[in-house]
């Protein structure tokens, strides 16, 4: 069953996620707006981020069990090998069961826009890491 077939996900998308994405887009230049595409039972969000010097292409996937299961975010722009970067340039953004509220995905509090902002923060850290070779924020606990 895909995200579009699930009434819980559908209500969530219509009532929460799409209004949040519209608000996000309305505050951005056209090249940095998010577009959405259903694909294989999931929903892909495609967008660009410019945390500091560079522009990155990203895709965030809302899985069929969203929002129970956290979205995953991949950077399509080639990155250097670095900490907190998983297979296929997937960003390590959440630590489930973390005691830090913003380090674990929480369907009651977060939207896909929060995932995009988390990716922005990750990329900002990455640009610092590229220069200084230290990750500027502590590990999630």
């Amino acid at each position, binding site marked *: 069953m895909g995200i579009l077939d699930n009434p819980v996900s559908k209500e969530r*998308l219509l009532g*929460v996620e799409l209004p949040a994405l*519209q608000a996000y*887009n309305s505050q951005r230049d056209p090249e940095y707006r998010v*577009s959405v595409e*259903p694909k294989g039972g999931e929903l892909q969000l495609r967008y660009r981020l410019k945390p500091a010097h560079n522009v990155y292409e990203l895709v965030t996937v809302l899985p069929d069990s969203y929002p129970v299961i956290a979205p995953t975010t991949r950077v399509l722009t080639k990155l250097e090998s670095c900490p907190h970067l998983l297979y296929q340039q997937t960003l390590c953004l959440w630590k489930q069961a973390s005691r830090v509220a913003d380090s674990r995905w*929480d369907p009651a*509090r977060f939207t896909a826009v929060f995932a995009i902002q988390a990716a922005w923060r990750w990329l900002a850290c990455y640009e610092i890491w590229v220069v200084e070779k230290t990750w500027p924020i502590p590990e999630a606990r």
Partner: protein
Amino acid sequence: MAVLDLLGRDSRIDTILLVEPDTYKPHNVHRHYFPAASCGKPKADLAAGWLAERRPDLRVETLVADLCDPACAGRIDEMVSRADIGVCAVDNDRAKLHWDWLMRRHSKPWTLGEVLAGGIGGFVHMFVPGGPCFACVASQLQRETKVDDSPPPDYSAPGHAISEASIPASISSVHAIASLHALSTLALLGDEDGRGWDSTTRLLPLRAVPGIFNRALETVNLPFARLADCLNCSSGKGGGDLLEAFECLNRAAGS
């Protein structure tokens, strides 16, 4: 099955509407009520037969279906609309959130029992209309999300034994939490605003575990409140066509 058995024997309950997709498997035998000879039969039918033998006056209506199956959504919705209370014993968070959605949609009180891995304890939650939802409680519990990650069935050998991915709880642990779950359900049924049960969630440690539970059998009451900005229960419902909404967003995004 344990909570169903306990509730089904209570004379105040005259009808049970049961939704259960699974087939009884050999690996179920040591922890369930039915013999090995029942393997291959739908669990819902076995449960209905078990209850009929003990309560011939009890009406049991079964639906062998996945709770989240869109093909059965209408039938499940109709069943929920007829119920006075919901009892949830699913083991993955996706189904729990779906059940929560159904219960809120029909303004029904409901209960949920959860046995922790290894049977070290468990939670019993009571939900009432207007109170905290499952997502509010899960957010405040700060726990790891569990989804149904069971492997797909082996179609070449239906009914074969499969290994369980998680550490199974003992039947004693399952029954201890099921008893608390049944008691909380009966309390809610007799008193639908939950008077006398002053917390949303009860945690019952069944074993002392260093770093987790200091002592066994000391019930912890967790009076969770509804989160003011819960995206699950406080947000707008949002109607309309999803694909049209995507197109509208993409048009505005210029793609």
